[in-house]
């Protein structure tokens, strides 16, 4: 066993200081290495006063650093049209709630008085003090409803209500999304439009088929009555 092997070895504590002698390097003037290092430090200090790429401090909040278009922070809910609550794309399917790693999403499905699902959220809360900005909710959403925001100035003095975002607070228009991430939003819009067109085409085809079937049936019935 390896443990036995371990014991049979010489204990390192007795030998580690004198395990190996220092390598016999060519003799150099003592202190040259130290001076070389100090030269690097001095060069860096002087350069930091005049080189543009070395002056990296951004004087926030007077100045803002440019933020990468891919940057993600907290999620938002997309809506179509003018009315935020009516146009929410969310269908309260609970996929994001299940996939959320820290479980910071809370959804209640809206139902009518008969208990039938209205396919929209009655409550949609995200506790951003728990959210860890991973973006999995946006990734798994099959209804193009949830996306990651780029807003970062969210500090508040109220750590309970102020950090619990409800659906009114989370709702953002699709225009906002298009402004924030033009590439992603354009892709989503194109796909949604294609889906819509497909749906319309399928519906039209279905209607046409139904019409044709009906006509054929009527014809058959007419023929039958003629024969009798």
């Amino acid at each position, binding site marked *: 066993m390896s443990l036995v092997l371990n014991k049979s070895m010489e204990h390192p*504590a007795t030998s*580690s*200081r004198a395990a190996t002698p220092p390598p016999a390097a060519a003799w150099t003037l003592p202190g040259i*290495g130290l001076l070389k290092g100090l030269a690097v430090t001095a060069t860096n200090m002087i350069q930091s006063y005049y080189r543009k790429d070395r002056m990296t401090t951004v004087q926030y909040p007077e100045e803002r650093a440019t933020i*990468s278009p891919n940057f*993600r922070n907290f999620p938002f809910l997309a809506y179509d049209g003018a009315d935020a609550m009516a146009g929410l794309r969310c269908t309260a399917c609970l*996929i994001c709630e*299940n996939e959320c790693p820290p479980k910071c999403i809370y959804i209640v499905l809206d139902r009518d008085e008969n208990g039938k699902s209205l396919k929209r959220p009655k409550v949609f809360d995200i506790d951003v003090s728990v959210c860890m900005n*991973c973006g999995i909710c946006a990734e798994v959403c099959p209804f193009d409803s949830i996306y990651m925001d780029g807003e970062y100035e969210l500090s508040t003095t109220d750590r309970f209500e102020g950090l619990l975002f409800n659906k009114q607070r989370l709702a953002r228009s699709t225009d906002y999304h298009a402004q924030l991430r033009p590439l992603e939003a354009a892709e989503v819009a194109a796909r949604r439009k294609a889906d819509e067109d497909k749906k319309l085409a399928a519906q039209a085809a279905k209607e046409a088929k139904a019409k044709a079937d009906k006509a054929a049936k009527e014809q058959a019935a007419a023929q039958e009555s003629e024969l009798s």
Partner: protein
Amino acid sequence: MPELDEDQLLHVSLGPQHPSTHGVFRMNVLLDGETVVSLKPVFGYLHRNHEKIAEGITYLSSMPFTDRLDYICPLTNNWAYAQAVEKLAGIEVPERAEYIRVITAELTRLINHSAFVGFFLGDMGAWGSALMYAFREREKILDLFEDLTGARMMSNYMRFGGCRNDLPDGWAAKASVLVNEFPRFLDELENLVTGNEILIARTQNIGALPKEALINGGITGPMLRAAGVAYDIRKVEPYGIYDRFKFRIPLGTTGDCYDRLMIRLLELRESLAILRQALDQLPEGAYIHPKAKIRNFKPPVGEAYARIESPKGELGFYLISDGSAKPFRYRIRPPSFINLTLLEDMCLGLDLADVVLILGSIDIVLGEVDR
């Protein structure tokens, strides 16, 4: 060893809140004058129950938690976990995704090793300069990561069967510029540290252990290679597409703290060589397997262990699946934790000041040690 008078020994509790312990880590040290007589590491202050939490959530949901293991290099953690799940479910990875993974992993190695040099010098008392220079370069790489993954550190980027998104326009060109400029920083770093007489006096012949002890202790990564053992998973068990690149594995001779520092400096150059080849060969194509599932992912019943050479050593994920959407067992083999197990053996008989240095040379991240 002569008999020690119990009354003459001094008990020092280093940590848990101590700048030299790289996080919340405690060492109970028994001193005879300045000499270490015994050292008992105490960890677990940062325990977050990661493995058990992972058994209660879906496979995909664990991915962002792996970022928080070794938070200096989240992308290699992502890769190891993605590889384990891919092995479990038998998912193939497209070529372009493999290249993206190699590029991000080697950039991560650049961050880790250059930051290591800074932290190590900080442990020695040269607090500031080297770390700030390393962080200046790290910032450039983190900007690249932000463009690619959306976050500087908590990337959550790899997916089972590829990566989450493709490289943004111009990203590869920006990375090439960075890779071409990086050697200048390495020259600067080497000028700063390698010839320094104080550094040599402090690090040579400190903390060396025989090869056999390191192998028996399960030590991996730069710690093991510094002692002259040619063991790098990228070479001995090539994963991904590492067998396509030409690179060398630097080896030390004595395994003391100086060797451990130099190994990392040399590995930085080899990482740059891999990055140059990968960026040159980067093919077009899909960044994720077209049949990779994001929702309703249920791997078949079975078990898998996948390991990669993370910047700190062998990082492995062991998964058991019972066919449901959640892993039955989820286990991590963290390099930092296992490299830490021989700390006492390395420190016995040395001075207290050397203990700090040896701990620094192991290159631990407490997020990974405690999990």
